[in-house]
């Protein structure tokens, strides 16, 4: 079974904001304070509900956004120049930070591609006889040189084991978990509360079950229903459209 794990994590409040700007198709140069603040808080609340550790940075940003939003909601009966500037500054500063961060986030994607390409190239160990050591003088190397050499070594391949299908444990478990979930849903005959599909609160079990549910959704084996944002999720066997 091929299951590509897409790691779609947020790397902090700026990353989350960029995600929202992207999702809501907002112009980064003209961010609507109210909308972005509401959406941002919704996410942070969800994170709290999921009892994920929220880094303090997320909360600091929440406070900044709320301040920005409340100022933007103030009736604009020619406030003093000072107040006006302050509001502009918060918005501007945030915009600049987002643009700056976005630049590096994009660069990180390019680096990731280069890293991936690099894993397709192999060399061989230097011959044992090569490179006469300098016996005298200071040892002009740092711990980083040693770590770098070690990494270089890990990129080399020791070839020997004949090809064999290696099945990774988690892939196996997702598959088994999918079968188990289908049985549970089938036996229940009525929609099952989303949370009830998670048997334990072990991190690994949560992740595997979750991946299994998503895979089943993708395969149109199950349907997840929800009445509205942040209402209870129910899961039922059978796809949304029955083509078969």
């Amino acid at each position, binding site marked *: 079974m091929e299951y590509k794990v897409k790691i779609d994590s947020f790397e902090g409040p700026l990353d989350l904001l960029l995600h929202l700007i992207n999702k809501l198709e907002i112009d980064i140069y003209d961010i609507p304070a109210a909308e972005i603040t509401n959406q941002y808080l919704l996410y942070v609340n969800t994170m709290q509900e999921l009892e994920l550790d929220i880094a303090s*940075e997320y909360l600091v940003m929440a406070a900044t956004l709320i301040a920005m939003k409340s100022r933007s909601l103030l009736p604009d009966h020619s406030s003093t120049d000072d107040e006006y500037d302050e509001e502009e500054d918060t918005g501007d500063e945030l915009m600049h*930070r987002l643009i700056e961060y*976005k*630049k590096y986030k994009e*660069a990180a994607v390019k*680096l990731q591609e280069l890293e991936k390409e690099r894993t397709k190239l192999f060399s061989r160990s230097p011959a044992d006889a090569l490179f006469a050591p300098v016996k005298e003088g200071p040892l002009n190397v*740092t711990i*980083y*040189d040693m770590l770098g050499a070690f990494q270089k070594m890990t990129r080399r391949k020791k070839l020997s*084991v004949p090809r064999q299908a290696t099945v990774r444990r988690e892939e196996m478990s997702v598959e088994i978990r999918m079968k188990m979930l289908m049985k549970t849903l089938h036996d229940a005959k009525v929609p099952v509360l989303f949370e009830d599909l998670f048997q334990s609160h072990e991190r690994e079990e949560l992740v595997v079950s979750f991946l299994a549910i998503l895979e089943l959704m993708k395969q149109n084996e199950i349907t997840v229903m929800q009445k509205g944002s942040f209402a209870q999720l129910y899961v039922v066997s059978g796809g949304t459209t029955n083509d078969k």
Partner: protein
Amino acid sequence: MTNESIIESLLFAAGDEGLSAEQMADVLDVDVQTVQHVIERMAEAFLHDDMRGVTITTYGEEYRLMTKKENAPFIQALAEKPSPKTLSQAALETLAIIAYNQPVTRIEVEDIRGVKTERPIATLAARGLIEEAGRAEGAGRPILYKTTTEFLDAFQLKNLDELPPLSEGEVQVQQEADLFFGRFEEAMGETTEE
């Protein structure tokens, strides 16, 4: 023997340690330009010869023989161990910020990312991708970081100039304007705040 033959032998023996044009010129007793010229021709020929499985690559100052990208699946099929773990998103972002701004302090990286960055920095250092580059002036004299030669190797870059360009266009213009006004404001700020 031809220079090509000897260079292939030398590069083969050097493996992933690689060799500089100077080292090869020294052994061949020819000048560096000759070596560079011969290698360029060889690299080109290897690349286009579909009977060849290796090419010559450059990173930093070093030339190396490396297997062709297209053959990777066959090598991986015989490999004992899976490829080393790739870097996390946090580590890649941190690395990008360091690579484009080096030397740079952790605080500066955190300012751009908006989150704590101790762990990604430790990971990058343990991978030999970044190293300390002295200390910055000012309060606490924080450690400065820069990328290593291993960084060039790990991302197949000849040198830092080969880093993919940061997104430009609109942003660039914007930044130039910001820079201008920033400086202007700073200057103003300095005078008014004092």
